[in-house]
């Protein structure tokens, strides 16, 4: 009963601020548009590819190329949902209304996660179909082995990225600090770690690299990743759980 009240309240909160609309629309538009662009470019480049590259060409994964940039908007969404309570001072008003801090935090995260899931799934399916349309005769279809899992997984990936950001924001309690850490981490550091041989083995256990495995249908030639698509998503889930526990502990312990 009390939890239902918190969820209703958080739904009112999330739908009554502009940042929800612009962050989520940006995530949708960027993910789809960039995926279409890369798909179209890949099609025109296909004839110039080496035989090996053609073997590992993954039309499904190609249509998700926009995720790398679109996820940044999801990160902003997750960060703002939580950290704006602190930057505006609203947190004190909120906790006066819901003094059970666990109920407050998880009610908020549940609502934002559900919204991210709906938007993430819609984006993933749209990115897949529109991307495949760009690929012409190279296209994969939803019935091919592993494709439905990848498309479904794309939606889960976007959702988990948002959840991870919510946990980090609950720990850091500042939108600027949270974005200042998460944005470069996901946009630069993770891919740098993944590109250098020495750090690659560590890099692939980072949340985004492990999680994005779920969107792959054709593994690259010579791929020695020690986990499969669901294993990778599992690693990402562990990161999310750790961030959420961290956020909960901070909220529970510290003065508001």
């Amino acid at each position, binding site marked *: 009963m009390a939890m239902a009240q918190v969820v209703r309240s958080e739904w009112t909160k999330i739908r009554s601020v*502009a940042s929800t609309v612009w962050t989520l629309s940006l995530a949708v538009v960027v993910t789809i548009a960039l995926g279409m662009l890369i798909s179209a470019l890949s099609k025109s480049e296909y004839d110039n590819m080496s035989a090996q590259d053609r073997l590992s060409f993954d039309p499904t994964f190609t249509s998700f190329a926009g995720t790398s940039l679109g996820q940044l908007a999801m990160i902003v969404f997750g960060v703002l949902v939580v950290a704006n309570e602190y930057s505006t001072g*609203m947190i*004190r008003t909120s906790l006066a209304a819901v003094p059970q801090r666990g109920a407050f935090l998880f009610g908020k995260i549940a609502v934002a996660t559900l919204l991210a899931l709906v938007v993430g799934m819609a984006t993933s399916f749209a990115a897949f179909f529109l991307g495949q349309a760009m690929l012409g005769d190279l296209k994969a279809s939803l019935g091919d082995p592993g494709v439905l899992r990848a498309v479904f997984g794309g939606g889960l990936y976007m959702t988990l990225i948002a959840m991870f950001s919510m946990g980090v924001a609950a720990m850091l309690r500042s939108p600027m600090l949270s974005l200042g850490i998460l944005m470069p981490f996901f946009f630069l550091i993770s891919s740098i770690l993944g590109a250098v041989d020495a750090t690659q083995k560590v890099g692939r256990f980072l949340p985004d690299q492990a999680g994005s495995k779920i969107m792959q249908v054709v593994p690259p030639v010579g791929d020695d990743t020690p986990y499969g698509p669901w294993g990778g998503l599992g690693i990402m889930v562990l990161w999310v759980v750790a961030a959420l526990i961290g956020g909960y502990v901070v909220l529970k312990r510290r003065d508001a």
Partner: protein
Amino acid sequence: MIELEGLTKRYGEKVAVNNLTFAVRPGIITGFLGPNGAGKSTTMRMVLGLDRPTAGDVRIDGKHYDELKDPLKYIGALLDAKAVHGGRSAYHHLLCLAQANGIPAKRVHEVLDVVGLTAVAKKKAKGFSLGMGQRLGIAAALLGDPRILMFDEPVNGLDPEGIHWIRNLMKALAAQGRTVFVSSHLMSEMALTADHLVVIGQGRLLADTSMADFIAQNSRSYVRVRTPQREQLLDVLHEAGITVAGSGSEVLEVEGDKSERIGELAAQHRIVLHELSPQQASLEEAFMRLTAESVEYHAHGGQPAGQQGAQQEWGAEWRRG
């Protein structure tokens, strides 16, 4: 009823609230008075369970804040009018609070009406003036129709009309039998509204008294007399059995309201008076005397460091006089 027992809050080395024990009773306005940094806001945050006490306890109707089911129906608070998401409309701000406590949406319209914000209900809170923000905070406090209300410096930055409105609102709430706990650092403001007074300084309890008692004890009236014939006047007053409370080189202070008597005596004895004026020590002065020991941020009169010696001498003089 709000009850504090040995309530203490330490931030690192700094003791913000020091062993406070008092109760805030229903049906009256209790003023919570203290200079800047005395610990008023910190105490109020602990009442709402926002800050955790280092020691001691605070209960609302016998319960801890987080044990209250739908707390906004027990106690409504205005701590900081800016504790609002500026991008959200006044209506949605109140609606999300109402939903969290199972308060019907129609109550949101009612409180918007009470505080006079109906016309701007759909406007974003960041466009609100100081007074409108304060009204929105009060609307939130009234939302659950609570028996206890707590306001932290509600008149700060308001224009005279707004101040008048808040005063009347608090009086009306107390007259309905509710508990009203309001902080201020202005004695004059409290004298107009509060029935009971709790004074703190540097986190410590300095007074817990009814307003009437405080006024009776502290509103000293005296007569100020200035004369070039100081010694003669002193003799005359002494003979007439009038005691002189304080005297400087030219100025005498006589307790009570005896200006007519002094004037007549001076005329009889042909003593020249340059001034004969009845005075009333203000409550503000009484408050300052009470908290003088514990004022955290003394103004040093803008004296440059080089004049430190001169300043000390001046202080010594004042203490002797």
